[in-house]
């Protein structure tokens, strides 16, 4: 028998990552001084799965008194143990944390996808391995600080208060904790209220690793918890990743104090495609630039600039590529775009989409089956956009791309820099000389050439202008946690 010219379509059957191997407690207390302690606030809040709105666990809401306990524990651990320990011994603990995380990578990936809505493909292949690699990388620096800063005396700062966002929960925890520990500081870390679970799982691993009590403390909660950390008199350093609005509040709050700070804030990064670019790979770069992690990426390439003579072709190809993206259950291995992190964020994104339409921009969304329950947003592009449109100026933090065209190099440099932000940029061209010309003129902390959204522990990351200051990752990432003399 022959199947002649099969005309039915071929679809991918659901391929769900299992969840039976993960362990989640019903209720999580605060991790202070090496122990799990009930919050003095007495309050707990629910952490939900944004893909189906089901409650995953109850998480403690730390108040001022809880934060005070955590800072005291961190101070005690700093004075008595951590600052006195031989750097090579510190390295062993950091290395051990990395190994333990690696061993439980699958559990971390699944919990990250459940709690944050991100696809299992990304949490499995990007978030968790990168988080492990940050610990591995900074473990290596712990006993080599004198080589990182030659001819300088290197001292740790003390207690670092760290506040991280919900877009890369575990990865941001790793970015913050690893360099702080390597340089001899102790930590009070607050994860975002919608994504506390992997930080709490990390606390379990820290417990298992035998890290001395109080070196890392995890306090969960909302903005008031973060404020309590920022305003605590005995914190030496604030490391914050999040919105520019909150970044400004923090900077005001610590003005006039001795506290050091690094802020990694928002962005509205330009992704620039020249007419000699490898066009199909550039289209893929546009997709990775804006739809990676549902667009919840501070350095997302959310402003696309295409040279006018290839704009039609690029947009046609981009739409075709968008049509082949799968939006849906984050735990399905074939899902390309998962759930929006929270209801609030979905409302924000939808508000901007409406603004875009009102501004007269032309919208395109591929037809895709969006689950009825949970928070989802179809990948969206706007063409016919002007620099003066709100959607081209403000950070949307979702899968929404604005497309503008340009004619000359000078024009695109001017437009790309014409933003209060300056976190990242992408340049797509076959000409090496043009890449170097742009990298020297674009005011952005990270510039990718013929690729986008590439991260590595050895490479520093951080912004210009209102995208913040200080660098995380690489040799530069050590600077924010040391006092040099």
């Amino acid at each position: 028998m022959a199947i002649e010219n099969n005309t039915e379509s071929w679809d991918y059957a659901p391929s769900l990552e299992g969840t039976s191997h993960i362990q989640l407690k019903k209720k999580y207390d605060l991790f202070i001084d090496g122990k799990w302690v009930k919050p003095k606030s007495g309050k707990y809040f629910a952490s939900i799965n944004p893909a189906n709105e089901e409650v995953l666990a109850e998480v403690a809401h730390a108040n001022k008194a809880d934060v005070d306990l955590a800072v005291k524990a961190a101070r005690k651990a700093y004075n008595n143990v951590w600052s006195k320990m031989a750097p090579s011994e510190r390295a062993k603990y950091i290395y051990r944390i990395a190994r333990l995380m690696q061993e439980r990578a699958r559990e971390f990936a699944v919990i990250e996808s459940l709690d944050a809505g991100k696809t299992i493909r990304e949490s499995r292949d990007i978030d968790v391995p990168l988080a492990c690699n940050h610990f591995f990388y900074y473990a290596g620096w712990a006993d080599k600080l004198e080589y990182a800063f030659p001819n300088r005396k290197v001292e740790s700062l003390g207690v670092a208060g760290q506040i991280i966002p919900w877009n890369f929960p575990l990865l941001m925890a790793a970015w913050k904790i690893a360099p702080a520990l390597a340089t001899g500081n102790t930590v009070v870390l607050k994860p975002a209220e919608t994504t506390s679970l992997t930080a709490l799982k990390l606390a379990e691993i820290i417990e298992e690793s035998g890290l001395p009590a109080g070196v890392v403390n995890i306090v969960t909660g909302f903005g008031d918890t973060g404020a309590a950390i920022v305003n605590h008199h005995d914190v030496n350093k604030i490391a914050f990743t999040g919105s520019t609005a909150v970044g400004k509040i923090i900077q005001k709050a610590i003005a006039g104090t001795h506290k050091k700070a690094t802020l990694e804030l928002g962005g509205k990064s330009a992704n620039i495609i020249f007419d000699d670019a490898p066009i199909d790979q550039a289209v893929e770069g546009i997709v990775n630039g804006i739809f990676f992690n549902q667009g919840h990426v501070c350095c997302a390439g959310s402003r696309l600039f295409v040279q006018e003579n290839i704009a039609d072709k690029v947009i046609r190809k981009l739409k075709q590529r968008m049509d082949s993206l799968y939006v849906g259950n984050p735990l399905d291995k074939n899902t390309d775009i998962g759930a929006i992190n929270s209801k609030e964020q979905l409302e924000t994104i939808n508000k901007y989409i409406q603004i875009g339409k009102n501004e007269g921009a032309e919208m395109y969304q591929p037809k895709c089956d969006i689950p009825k329950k949970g928070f989802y947003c179809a990948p969206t592009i706007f063409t016919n956009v002007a620099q003066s449109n709100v959607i081209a100026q403000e950070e949307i933090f979702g899968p929404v791309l604005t497309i503008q065209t340009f004619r000359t190099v000078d024009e695109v440099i001017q437009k790309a820099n014409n933003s209060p932000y300056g976190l990242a940029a992408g340049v797509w061209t076959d000409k090496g000389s043009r890449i170097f010309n742009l990298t020297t003129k674009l005011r952005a902390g990270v510039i990718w050439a013929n690729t986008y959204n590439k991260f590595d522990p050895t490479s520093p990351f951080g912004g210009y202008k209102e995208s913040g200051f200080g660098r995380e990752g690489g040799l530069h990432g050590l600077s924010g946690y040391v006092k040099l003399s």
Partner: protein
Amino acid sequence: MKPISFLNVPPSPSIDKVGVEERVARFQTRSIKDQSKMQGLKMVLNMIDLTTLEGKDTPGKVRQMCYKAQHLHDLHPGLPTVAAFCVYPSMVAIAKKELKNSNVKIASVSTAFPSGQAPKEVKLTDTKFAVDAGADEIDMVISRGKFLSGEYNYVFDEIAAIKEACGKARLKVILETGELATLDNVRRASDIAIYAGADFIKTSTGKIQPAATMQVTYTMLMAIRDYFDETGIMVGMKPAGGISTSKLALHNLVMVKEILGDPWLNNEWFRFGASSLANDVLMQILKTETGVYQSSDYFTID
């Protein structure tokens, strides 16, 4: 009809190898399960060009393989046949006789396969001989030497001439990508072949390594996509050589689906040139149905 000329071939876009590798890796993360897997595996079987291209081929061997082409695994009813059986021109008449009552097409290599190092007249005669003997499809090779020395015009005209000699037979143009070295060259050769009239573009002869890597197939599929968007004309694709496992075959189908779409997912527009792939697919089909792997001794080798 527009006069065919090399001048009509548009400039080819540059290809970034690193970007292609990354894109291909992403296709390979697609997880094909359950009914999708079964449907995919059966499609693969039905897309195979069963092939024997050896100096030692005999009428006896060809007859045996013709039977296999129609009866892949009779112990398991309901399986499709392969798409075509591919031989040297001298064996076409024998295959034609054996396959006259089946849907299996007869493909013949030609143009001094595999090297293509022969005068144009010889190549035309070679092609006409195969067509006259009853070949439904002609698998020609391009002149790689001419291509690499920049004589694109020559390559284009040669393909156009062979296409004319094919008459009603469909023409597959083998680029022999293993000798073209770069993806930029693969793309350029694809564009030349397509604009010169290829019904199919094909990666390799199977005699040179590397053959049908996913990077190469991806690059060629993008050329087909662009041509379709430009003209509305479909061109087929045949990766050949090096695809011997079901998993790799399914990942190729994933690429076809996501780049070209469902209309290409049948043997009219997509083929696998492979000799050992069929048995691996059969083994996977039976494993999927029974839950256990059978010994390879249960699958016939002709």
